[in-house]
């Protein structure tokens, strides 16, 4: 089953924040959602999950809540951990759509939690108190929580913000491993270099509209970078794919 959205429009109050966006994601894809602040990336993802009222149609939002939670995992941008609970219990929350209670995990659930913690490189932290971790460690624990859900689809909102370079790359590689297993990932990113390098496809948003959708080298053109982000970048297409380094603000036209 694929992720299909048609003409998704979201109004917050009377302001349209997402305007008629259509998007299809097939299994095996890592789709990077890029765009300046306020472009509507988070709102689009929340709407497609059915967390916001919207017009249009979306395959995820039409599912009943529990089946949706077994189909798609959501990693929000604000890394909230309200109580000082152990890391392992926090990650086990990802098993609740599968009928688990974090107080009593089956062997399969415990195995899924272990796999997720290992993928996020947080297994060594399993007995620590989640609220006492550093910001980057919390981000990885919450990633593990989403991975433990073991869903065919993962939606992540700026999951690598605030991570060190190694863990930024490791996280992007986890998404690629997920895709290699036939799952799909939709990830909002601000790091265009990593987006170009690790996403199989990019979707560019500006002021609520989708303005480009395709291979990284076709989306991150000099024209789009100047028009949408207002920057000039050094870009070179190599055998490994597009390399991109933002350089300076674009001249105002």
């Amino acid at each position: 089953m694929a992720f299909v959205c048609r003409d998704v429009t979201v109004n917050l109050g009377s302001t349209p924040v997402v305007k008629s966006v259509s998007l299809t994601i097939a299994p095996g894809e890592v789709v990077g959602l890029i765009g300046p602040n306020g472009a509507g990336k988070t709102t689009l993802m929340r709407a497609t999950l059915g967390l916001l009222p919207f017009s249009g149609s979306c395959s995820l939002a039409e599912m009943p809540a529990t089946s949706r939670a077994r189909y798609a995992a959501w990693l929000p941008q604000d890394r909230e951990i309200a109580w000082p609970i152990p890391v392992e219990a926090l990650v086990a929350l990802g098993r609740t759509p599968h009928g688990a209670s974090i107080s009593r995990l089956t062997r399969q659930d415990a195995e899924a939690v272990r796999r997720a913690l290992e993928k996020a490189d947080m297994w060594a932290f399993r007995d620590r108190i989640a609220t006492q971790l550093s910001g980057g460690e919390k981000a990885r624990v919450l990633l593990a929580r989403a991975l433990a859900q073991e869903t065919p689809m993962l939606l992540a909102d700026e999951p690598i913000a605030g991570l060190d370079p190694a863990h930024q790359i490791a996280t992007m590689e986890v998404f690629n491993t997920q895709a290699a297993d036939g799952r799909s990932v939709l990830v909002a990113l601000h790091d265009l270099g990593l987006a170009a390098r690790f996403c199989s496809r990019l979707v560019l948003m500006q002021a609520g509209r989708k303005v480009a959708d395709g291979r990284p080298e076709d989306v991150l053109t000099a024209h789009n970078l100047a028009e949408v982000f207002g920057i000039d970048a050094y870009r070179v297409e190599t055998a490994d794919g597009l390399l991109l380094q933002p350089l300076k603000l674009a001249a105002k036209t």
Partner: protein
Amino acid sequence: MMAYVRLLVALGLLSLLLFVVSLLVGPAGVSPRLSLSALIFGDAGPLTLVMREIRLPRAILGAVIGAALGLGGAAMQGYLRNPMAEPGILGVSGTAALGAVLAIQTGLTATFALALPFAALAGAGVAVTLLLFLAGRRGGALTLILAGIAISALAGALTSLVLNLSPNPFAANEIIFWMMGSLADRSFLHVALALPFFALGACLILPLGRGLDSLTLGEDAAEALGVRIVRLRVLLVAGVAAMIGGATAVAGAIGFVGLVVPHLLRRTVGAQPGRLLFASALGGACMVLAADIAVRLILPDRDLKLGVMTAIVGTPFFLHLIYRTRGRG
């Protein structure tokens, strides 16, 4: 898991012990053996009457009301994700008190015995209707808190108005003493009145444990995990309101139990909000039973009020909580 079961067993045994001690404390000053045998085997004598009609309902109410306050506090803290939340934040205890005050002031209490608790329940009903209207379908935790604060403030102001305009000093006196909260001189009628509300509230709230666990990640993530937030909020508010309305109706306002007990037990349950529900219910029963024993032992002939006792014991814990969280951002 084992540690959690051990904790529940320990709290269960402690509340059972306090329940028995509560049965044995009283001005009659009879030996424990005689008291218990009079309670269990019974005869037509006055001791059986004291045990069955005075001390037994008092001990049952102590356990039930304590459990209601502890469970209500744990539920509110879990939902609001805030250790400073307590069941009174909904304004239900305030409006219940207002209902009771009106019943005393108008003299309804003199016409039939249960007028006071019924008026208090009506007050609680008004609060919960307003709450669900203001913060039911839309509007998240913040709307709920603000609505609760507004309702509390209004109820408090109206209560003060009644006291202010009271032409009868005896009624004013009665009102003030009633508001301090007490379990003295309650009968099985009170037990029969409070118990269904407690049972209803517990049935609504205890199954919400998993949803509250998921809320650790925030409302958005919990909803994406399949938690139906609106349903959870409505059930939780209705459950807490039923329990706290019932408790206030028969015992007056008993503060700090709902705030302190979940806080005290949080670490022992690994801070999991779902586990904290059961543990706090038992812990609340222990605290109120202990406080009710204390008021009878410390000043046996001065009718020391239960709500005064819990606040005096509770406030230092609250200060301790502030001391520990200060500087933690």
